């Protein structure tokens, strides 16, 4: 790979393969053979080869768009980089532990937005003092100050998404992975969230952006990795790769 050597590598993905073994449940069992099928289920596994030898290196201040059709292995690759999906072959090295942008799973719908800001911040690894210091910024960014003491279950989906994004980006990440999170909220919030991503990148961070929106990738990324069926198709400057990708899609 023709890589500039003066920049510090932050993430090295070296010939990564990921295989899933999944139970192929197949046809619904009928009453007659249900007993037999129950025993057989153990053996009926199928191996899905989600990534087939992907290698690339990400450098400091890179913001890398990751594109590909549905089921191409983008999310698997991101989850492998975060360390949530073990690689069956090859390894991934990183300067610090990469984090996925997303905090939704830590939040509790029955609690107020205020409580959730605290809980989400703590889940991201902030201390209570740090959360308190950032509390106003988070609420301000989410733009739902008037509703912050209401339980989260009463929020609209847009409001929930904005709150989640505001909490998730409150922590400075060295290596951040954003999986299609920019398409939330109204136009105004989208612009603000894209600006926030650029800000993270400018603070000596590295950002991976997985998206189907070529517009947001063009706006935020300087480099694009194109994955198709678990294979790295192309890796290069944004415009070139997107042009090739769109060319392949329209064919």
């Amino acid at each position, binding site marked *: 790979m023709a890589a500039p050597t003066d920049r*510090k*590598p*932050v*993430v*090295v993905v*070296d010939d990564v393969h990921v295989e*899933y*073994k*999944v139970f192929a449940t197949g046809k619904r069992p009928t009453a007659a053979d249900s007993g037999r099928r129950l025993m057989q289920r153990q053996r009926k596994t199928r191996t899905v080869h989600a990534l087939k030898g992907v290698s690339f290196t990400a450098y400091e201040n890179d913001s890398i768009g990751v594109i590909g059709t549905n089921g191409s292995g983008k999310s698997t690759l991101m*989850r*492998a*980089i*975060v*360390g*949530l*999906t*073990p*690689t069956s072959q090859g*390894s*991934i*090295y*990183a*300067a610090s*532990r*990469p*984090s*996925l942008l*997303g*905090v*939704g*799973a*830590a939040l*509790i*719908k*029955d*609690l107020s937005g205020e*409580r959730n800001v*605290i*809980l989400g911040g*703590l*889940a*991201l*690894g902030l*201390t*209570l003092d740090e959360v308190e210091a950032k509390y106003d910024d988070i609420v301000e960014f989410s733009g739902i100050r008037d509703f912050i003491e209401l*339980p989260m279950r009463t929020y609209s989906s847009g409001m929930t998404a904005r709150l989640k994004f505001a909490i998730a980006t409150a922590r400075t990440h060295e290596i951040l992975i954003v999986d299609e999170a920019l398409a939330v909220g109204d136009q105004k919030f989208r612009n603000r969230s894209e600006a926030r991503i650029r800000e993270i990148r400018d603070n000596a961070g590295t950002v991976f952006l997985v998206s189907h929106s070529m517009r947001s990738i063009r706006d935020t990324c300087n480099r694009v990795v194109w994955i198709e069926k678990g294979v790295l198709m192309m890796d290069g400057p944004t415009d070139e790769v997107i042009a090739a990708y769109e060319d392949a899609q329209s064919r």
Partner: protein
Amino acid sequence: MTVADEAAQYGLHRVGGRPPLGRYLAEVWRRREFIGSLARFRLEAENGRNRLGMAWVVLKPLLNAGVYGLIFGVLLQTRREIDDFVPYLVIGVMMFEYFSTCFTTGAKSITANAALVQSLSFPRMSLPLALVAQRFLQFGPMVVIMLLAAVVSGSRPQPSWLLLIPLVVLFTIFNAGLTLVTARLTVHFRDLTQLLPFISRFFFYTSGIFFSVEARFHDHPTLMRIADFQPIHEFLTLGRAILLSGPQYTMPTEYWWYGTAWAAGMLAFGTLFFWAAEERYGRTD
């Protein structure tokens, strides 16, 4: 030069490895605020939509004690062999409730939070520990009920009641260790969640909650010996010996040693056992 050497040269680490035990535990300690808040907020959310709210934390075990007291104490007459049957039963049910909720709901602490485990990186031990912390907070009001039951039946508060503090500490440590074990086992065998209520029930009927193991089996030395080493029975007996007075409630000093051994052993084993599979918890297969 291999990629690994090159990566090491730039100070890059392999992603997804399990940290050594010391570093892991330090990381868990660093997350203590998260563990505490998760426990507090979950407790709040669990009862927030009930009309009576947090009152259910106390009402549920009280109703439990009422049902068992009526059926076993009154209808089956187990109260005849026990002095101060009401506080005996209340202490038994409250303490067992603490154990069984840790044991059964703790088992699901990883599997029920799969989305959280898959989206954020934090030491997974935080989840079962948060659950034990949540149950501990619920146990607080139950201790008050236990004290009230003891006072109402004629015990007078005395300095020796402070022994309740080390007892609760030991009991909590024991529960935490056990929760770590069941939390991991459930990840490997989901079917365990179906079985756990029965195991919990087995302990409920054998630990002497509403009958007295000593009064009923005093001429079965083998059974008595087994009961001596049954941790739940030990903790319950100590709790009653602290709060109640009378010939039935003399303090069995050796139970403190057995209880300490159970608590320390369970926590050590649970921690190692849980940590050993740390990389496994986020996987979807």
